[in-house]
C-alpha cells in the first residue's frame, strides 16, 4: 500500500433545513456525520451507499463545493479545511471532480475545446501558445477527434460528453479525481467503455480515484478498497476482495445480497424492513439499528465506532466490537 494521499478526519456536513423561531425547533440535516477514512496514492477507493447517504456530499467537500461543518480534510498532509478561498483554490489543480450527469455538467454556451482549455488557462498552467496542443492531446486521449473541438455539448452523446468531462478534469493534471457516479447516467454498453478509459488513465497518469457509486457491481469492477456508507456514517471499510467475500456489517451483508448476480441463484436475499430514516433528526446511536436483522438488546442507543476487525478491514457494529 502506498503513502496516504488524502485523509479525512471526523468530517461532517450539516445543513440547516429549518431555522425555527429564534433557534427553537431548529431542524438540521446531518448529510455527513463524523466520517473518517484514508485514500492511498494510486488506488481506487470505492464509496457506496444508497441515495441520500452522503457520499456525493463528501465528494463535493473534497473539491471545495461545500464547506465542511466539522472535521478535517488532509491532502498530502496539508490541511485544506480553514484555508482562505484564494489558497484553497490552489488545490483545484490537485483534486478534480467528474460529474454524474454529463448532460448538465458542461456549459451549453461553450465549445468543448473551450471547456477543456479553460482549466489550463485560468490556472495558468501553460503558455497560451501551447494550450491548443494540449487540448488536442487531451481530446485524443479520451477518444474524441480534434475536429470536434468547435462543437457545442448538445451535439454529443452522453458517453462523448462524459469523455469531455473527463478531459476537463485531466486538463490540470490532478493527483486525485473524485468520480461522482460517472457512469450511472450512461447506457450499460457505454459504462464499460468509460470505466475502461478511467482505468487506462489511472495507469498512465498515476491517478488516485475516489469512486462514488450506488451499485456494488461497478465499484467491484474498479476499486481496490471499498467504503460503505449508511445515512451519513461510514459503516464498513475494507479491501475489495475481503469486503465482498466476507462482509462484516449487517448493512453491507444486506446490500451484497441484493446485488444481482449470475450463477448461484439460490443465494438467500436479506430483505430489510422499513425505509431509510430521515437524516433530519436521525436515530440516536447506531443509525442502522431500526432496520437491522441482527439487532440485539443493547444495540439501541449504542454508538458504534469504526473498529479494525481484521487487518485493513473496519466495521462499525456493536456485535463485532465484542461489547
Amino acid at each position: 500500500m502506498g503513502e496516504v494521499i488524502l485523509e479525512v478526519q471526523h468530517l461532517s456536513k450539516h445543513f440547516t433545513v429549518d431555522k425555527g423561531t429564534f433557534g427553537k425547533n431548529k431542524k438540521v440535516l446531518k448529510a455527513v456525520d463524523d466520517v473518517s477514512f484514508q485514500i492511498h496514492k494510486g488506488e481506487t477507493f470505492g464509496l457506496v451507499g444508497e441515495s441520500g447517504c452522503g457520499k456525493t456530499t463528501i465528494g463535493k467537500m473534497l473539491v471545495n463545493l461545500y464547506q465542511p461543518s466539522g472535521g478535517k480534510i488532509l491532502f498530502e498532509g496539508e490541511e485544506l479545511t480553514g484555508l482562505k478561498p484564494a489558497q484553497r483554490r490552489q488545490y483545484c489543480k490537485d483534486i478534480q471532480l467528474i460529474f454524474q450527469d454529463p448532460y448538465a455538467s458542461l456549459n451549453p454556451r461553450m465549445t468543448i475545446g473551450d471547456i477543456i482549455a479553460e482549466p489550463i488557462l485560468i490556472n495558468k498552467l501553460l503558455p497560451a501558445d501551447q494550450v491548443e496542443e494540449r487540448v488536442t492531446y487531451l481530446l485524443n486521449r479520451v477518444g474524441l477527434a480534434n475536429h470536434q473541438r468547435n462543437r457545442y455539448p448538445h451535439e454529443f452523446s452522453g458517453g462523448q460528453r462524459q469523455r469531455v468531462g473527463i478531459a476537463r478534469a485531466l486538463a490540470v493534471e490532478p493527483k486525485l479525481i473524485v468520480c461522482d457516479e460517472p457512469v450511472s447516467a450512461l447506457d450499460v454498453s457505454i459504462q464499460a467503455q468509460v470505466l475502461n478509459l478511467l482505468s487506462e488513465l489511472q495507469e498512465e497518469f498515476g491517478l488516485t480515484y475516489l469512486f462514488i457509486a450506488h451499485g456494488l457491481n461497478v465499484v467491484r469492477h474498479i476499486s481496490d478498497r471499498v467504503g460503505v456508507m449508511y445515512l451519513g456514517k461510514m459503516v464498513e471499510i475494507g479491501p475489495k476482495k475481503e469486503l465482498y467475500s466476507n462482509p462484516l456489517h449487517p448493512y453491507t451483508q444486506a446490500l451484497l445480497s441484493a446485488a444481482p448476480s449470475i450463477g448461484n441463484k439460490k443465494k438467500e436475499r436479506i430483505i430489510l424492513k422499513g425505509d431509510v430514516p430521515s437524516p433530519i433528526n436521525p436515530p440516536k446511536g447506531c443509525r442502522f439499528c431500526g432496520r437491522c436483522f441482527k439487532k440485539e438488546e443493547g444495540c439501541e442507543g449504542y454508538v458504534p465506532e469504526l473498529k479494525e476487525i481484521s487487518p485493513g478491514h473496519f466495521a462499525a457494529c456493536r456485535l463485532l466490537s465484542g461489547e
Partner: protein
Amino acid sequence: MALKKTAAVELTAQEKPESELKSIWESLKLSKTAVIGMVIIILLILIALVTFITEKMGIQILPYNPNEADMSASFVAPCAEHWFGTDELGRDIFSRIMDGTKISLFVGFSVVIFSMFFGIILGAVAGYKGGVIDTVIMRFMDIMLSIPGILFAITLMAALGKGLDKAIIAIGIVSIPEYARIVRGSVLSAKESDYTQAARVIGNKDIRIIFKHILPNVISPIIVRATLGISGAILDTAALGFLGLGVQPPLAEWGDMLGRAKGYIFSAPYTLVFPGLAITLAVLAFNLFGDGLSDALDPKSRKR
C-alpha cells in the same frame, strides 16, 4: 488505405459551430407581428440616422427646418405643403416628428443600457452571493418598485434638474429594479447547475463564473425585457416631455409636442394626433418585436 483517407478528410474538415443566431432568426421570421415590429424599428432607426447625419452635415433633407418658427403659417391644417399641418408657432409637424425620432430612440436605448448595466450587476451579485447581501439589495429594489415609476422619475428630475441627460438618468434609475429582479432569479437557478459547480471546481473566481458561465446562459429573458424596456422608456420620456420636464425647447420631442398641443385639442386636433401616433407606432413596434423575440429565444416554443 481507405481508412487512412477518411481520417485525413475528417481532419481537414474543421467544422464550424452551428449558429444559434440563425435558428433564432428562422423562428422569428415565422411570427408576422414580430417581423412587422422589426420593419418599423429598422425604419425608425433609418429615419433617426438620416436626420442626425444630415443635420450634422448641414444638409436639409426634411421639407422644413423643424425648429424654425413661421408665425404667418401657424395652425395650417394638413395639406400638400404641410403633410401633418403646422403647430402654434407655424413649425411643420411632419418635419418635427421626423426630427424627434432620433431623440426618442436615443433615450430608449440609453435608458435600457443604463438600467440594464446596473440591474445586471446588482441582480447577479444578489443572486450569486445570497444571504445578507441579497436581502439588502433586493429589499432596496422592492422599495424602489413600491414607488410609482413616473412619480419617482419626476421626483428624481426635481432633484437633478431639467434636460434630456437628466431624463435618461431618472428613467434609467427607475427601471433598474426590473432588471435586477429578472437577473437575480435567473442567476439563482443557474448558480446550482452542474456546469456552474464544474466552473468552481476547476478554480474559477466568482466574477468569472458570473460573467462567463452564468450570464451567457440566462441572457435570453434579459434581452426580451430590454426590448420591451425600450418602448417603456420611450413612453416615459414622452410623459416627462408632456409635463415639460424632458427636452427643452425648441428641440422637437414627441411627448413635448403632445404637451404643447393639448391646449388646441379642439381647434387643431392634428397638432396632437400625429405626435401621439408616432409614440404609439414606436412603442407598438418594440412591443411586437419583443414578444416575438421572447418566443424565438425560448427553445421549447421555437417553431421548426
